[in-house]
């Protein structure tokens, strides 16, 4: 069976500046691949290219073995998207938002009703189903934002910083939601700036900077390949954190 996602040598330039410079990666079945990188490194461009919203100058995106050029929504029917922004209709209720996006994904009738109930329950919003989205708390909006991205039960999910601005409790709930999806066989690309989040959730990590994947592998592989023996010299009592790996690779300078 083909991998859920294979990205091969993607190149994309904006006004002569390369946002993606030969990015390749693959995502395996039921795997969460963490995509880490400083601001402006090319994470969003990569995610948007996988979504089909950016046309690459060269390279290819294949979803479940099928080539998926920009705009090919048929190839992306099994893809779900959870954007960083709360991409919902604030005046509509939680239920109505799920209904709208469910319909956009081709659901209707009993299947739609069932999917809405399941999504509300999954997101812990069943009791707030009839509240206007703008009245929900930040954490609830985040969870609803995720629910709208998985209403059609995608096999491949793109999560772009899904825990930005939420309290620890909501974050814990979101982790549980993601674990449930993984248990259900969903493969995920997960972008985040929180290293402990990546350590906890991701099976593998890909670090992107200046439009290139500069390292990838499991956390242990990354530590071995970057800090390696220095571990014993620098960290006496503790294994180096993923954050240390990240800063070692991308530097400490503020990007913006």
């Amino acid at each position, binding site marked *: 069976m083909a991998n859920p996602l294979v990205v091969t040598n993607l190149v994309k330039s*904006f006004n002569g500046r390369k946002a993606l410079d030969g990015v390749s990666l693959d995502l395996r079945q039921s795997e969460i691949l963490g995509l880490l990188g400083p601001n402006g490194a090319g994470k969003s461009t990569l995610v*948007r290219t996988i*979504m*089909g*919203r*950016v*046309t690459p100058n060269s390279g290819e995106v294949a979803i479940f073995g099928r080539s998926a050029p*920009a*705009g090919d*929504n048929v190839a*992306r*029917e099994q*893809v779900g*998207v959870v*954007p*960083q*922004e*709360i*991409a*919902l*209709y604030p*005046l*509509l209720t939680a239920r*109505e938002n799920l209904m*709208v*996006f469910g*319909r*956009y*994904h*081709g659901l209707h009738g009993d299947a739609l009703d069932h999917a809405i109930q399941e999504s509300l329950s999954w997101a812990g919003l069943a009791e707030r189903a009839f509240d*206007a989205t703008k009245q929900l708390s930040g954490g609830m909006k985040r969870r609803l934002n995720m629910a*709208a*991205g998985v209403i*059609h039960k995608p096999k491949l999910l793109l999560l772009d910083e899904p825990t930005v601005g939420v309290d620890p409790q909501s974050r814990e709930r979101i982790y549980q939601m993601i674990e449930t999806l993984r248990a259900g066989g969903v493969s995920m690309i997960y972008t985040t700036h929180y290293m402990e989040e990546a350590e906890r959730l991701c099976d593998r990590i890909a670090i992107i900077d200046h439009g290139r994947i500069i390292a990838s592998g499991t956390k242990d592989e990354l530590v071995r390949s970057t800090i390696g023996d220095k571990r014993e010299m620098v960290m006496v009592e503790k294994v180096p954190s993923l954050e240390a790996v990240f800063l070692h690779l991308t530097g400490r300078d503020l990007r913006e």
Partner: protein
Amino acid sequence: MIGNIVRTGWMNLRRDRAAWMLSFVVPIVFFSIFASIFGGRRSSTPRVTVLIVDEDRSDRSKRLVNALRAESALKVIDKADAASAEAVIKKGDAAVALVIPKGFGTTQITFGPAKAGAPSFRMLRDPSDMIAPQVVSGMLQKTLFVGMPDMMITGGMDALEKFGGPLTPQQRENLQKQATNLKNLPRQKQQQGDLVKLDVTDVVGSKDNPIIAFYGAGVGVMFLLFTASGAGGALLDEVESGTLDRILSTRVSMSKLLAGKLVYLWSLGVAQLIVMFVWGALVFRLPLMSHLAGFAIMTSVTALTCATFGLLLASVSRTRAQLSAISTLAVLSISALGGSMFPRFLMSEKLQRASLVLFNSWALDGYINVFWREAPLSTLVAPVAVLIGWAVVFFFIARQLARRWEFV
């Protein structure tokens, strides 16, 4: 899919009280204001206020003032002198003053060039009012002819002798006698009739309240444009919130999305015009039921063109704030030039021709054909064709501009 986009638009509108008010309540309020101001004027002729300064204070000048006062088109206010009349005009309380010169009572009316040194009437005016001075000037000439016939006969005798040879003493005596009889006629009889008999028949316009149809269409189309541009801005909200990206990652393509938005805006426009005209029928006796077919045709195409115009404005703009500025400017400009605020038939011919470039002038012409001229439906072919043509152009441009949101 398009049905879902339309349903989403209506669900959002239902929850947005401000948009709801702007779409359905504010247009009715404006329409009612216009209709109340202008609709009620049919029962009485609008009168022009004229200040009269009688510097002559002769019997003849008093007769002239009385004759002018009897004119239904004029509201005469006496002023003691030209300076006080000028002050009133400067204050804006009247647009025109007529000064009857000293010596008017003793000067013979002449046909042809005026005699050197003859006293002349003076008119003081506010040039911003282009109509009142012309009305007063015309009424002065008419009053002299009709209201003071003895004076005209005397002047006429002199002209006749000058150009046709001297009258016999008998002729002169008879004419003088006739002039005296006319002078002694009761004032009412002097005022009766004009130089030629004139029967006036209204051949166009609804019998009950003709101007209502004009303002119904004018205000309706203007608010349709405001609503369409505001609702089209939902597209920009979706861009800014990332919702558009999410939508376009589903089965919905940009073409389907714009088509769905178009159908929603069209249905909103149709609903808005129906509410407006039903209100007009219920409150201002607009004859809607007897013109349903024409109303349906014009409402369908007008709402279509306004919907595409709203999409065009949204796709031209980068942000909501930009859309707000552009649409306010565009809608007010084309509403003024297209005749929503001021009837096109009162504009100069040049401006009337130029305004045909604007789609809303065709929409208004169509509605006026239906409700005012009560013209057959075949007269709607041209407005309908032009409106559909503009709708196609607007939608095509909007679709092209929307490519920037589609892919980068």
